[in-house]
């Protein structure tokens, strides 16, 4: 394991992503392009997970730290938020619950649909539950 070499590979992929983002006609974030690129490289076996394992484990394991500066800069927007923060909190609460329920309901529906067509799944098919539909009226 050579940490500097791993960093180099990661930065190289970042750089390629930035270059591709400039060439694309749609405004896709460079980091998303690089992410898909890395996934494809791993999937095709052109690039092995061991070639960036330590660096990626470090970054993934400490990701939360990286958002502190972005979060702190909310200090510059206190005036804008002062009057609306209760509404923002309400939106976050309601939307998160609805998103959870809709996702669960849809996924469950798809799993049942696939099971009916006789495909097998890694997850146990037993215990297929009451979907979320009945609960959504509360919203």
């Amino acid at each position, binding site marked *: 394991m050579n940490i500097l070499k791993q960093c180099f590979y*990661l*930065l190289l992929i970042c750089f390629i*992503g930035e270059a591709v983002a400039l060439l694309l006609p749609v*405004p*896709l*974030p*460079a*980091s*998303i392009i*690089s*992410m*898909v690129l*890395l*996934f494809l490289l*791993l999937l095709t076996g052109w690039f092995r*997970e061991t070639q*960036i*394992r330590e660096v990626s484990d470090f*970054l*993934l394991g400490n*990701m939360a*730290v*990286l*958002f*502190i*500066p*972005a*979060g*702190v*800069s*909310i200090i*510059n*927007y206190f005036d804008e938020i002062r009057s*609306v923060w209760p*509404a*923002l909190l*309400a*939106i*976050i609460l*309601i*939307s998160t*619950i609805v*998103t*959870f*329920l*809709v*996702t*669960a309901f*849809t*996924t*469950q529906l798809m*799993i049942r649909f696939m099971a009916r067509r006789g495909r*097998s*799944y890694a*997850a146990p098919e037993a*215990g297929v*539950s009451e*979907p*979320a539909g009945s*609960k959504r009226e509360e919203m």
Partner: protein
Amino acid sequence: MGELTSMALFGLGLSLGAFELGKLIQKKCKNPAANPLLIAIVLVIAVLQIFHIPYEDYEEGGKLISIFLGPATICLAVTVYRQVRILKANVLPILVGTAVGSAASILTVIGLCYLFRLDQVFHVSLIPKSVTTPIAMEISRAQNGIVPVTVAAVVLTGILGAIISPLLIRVCRIKNPVTAGVAIGTSSHVIGTSKAVELGEIEGAMSSISLVMSGIITVIYSLFL
């Protein structure tokens, strides 16, 4: 004092110190509401306010940390790659679940923003709230949203998801771990996923795949907004 605080060392050290303190508090409380990131942000803001340190001083060190956001986002590919077998076995439920779930997230945000008569800038700042922070920041920036508001919304969404997900799973009697994982990952990204991992291995794997999927899907949706 000003000379010291405007050094990059100050912002960098303050951030890392605040985060370590946050982790310590979380360990003591064992409560998902005691999120280290949230605690760190509050602590740093408190220090800056109390000692009247200008934000620009802090930013000198802060921007050194932000540089690593891009590389860290890319590493999410490694997470998905490690779960590729379970992804292949459930590809359709994951894709459809995250696609419909992300649409529900965006639509409820837009609908509620109109209901509360919020300014357009808050619509675009809140739209990516269920997506993992680095992707959410990109979406918000591309749409001219207020990125810090997005970060705050994302963190709050995640914490909320980690608290209410087990409750929702029980109330709705969701017994399939795939369903539970996809729902957690799509609605409350990485912070929710940390809870999903506690629930079980399949839940954790599905949740981490779904958070990446819903991130990509939300980016694609946002191109049409």
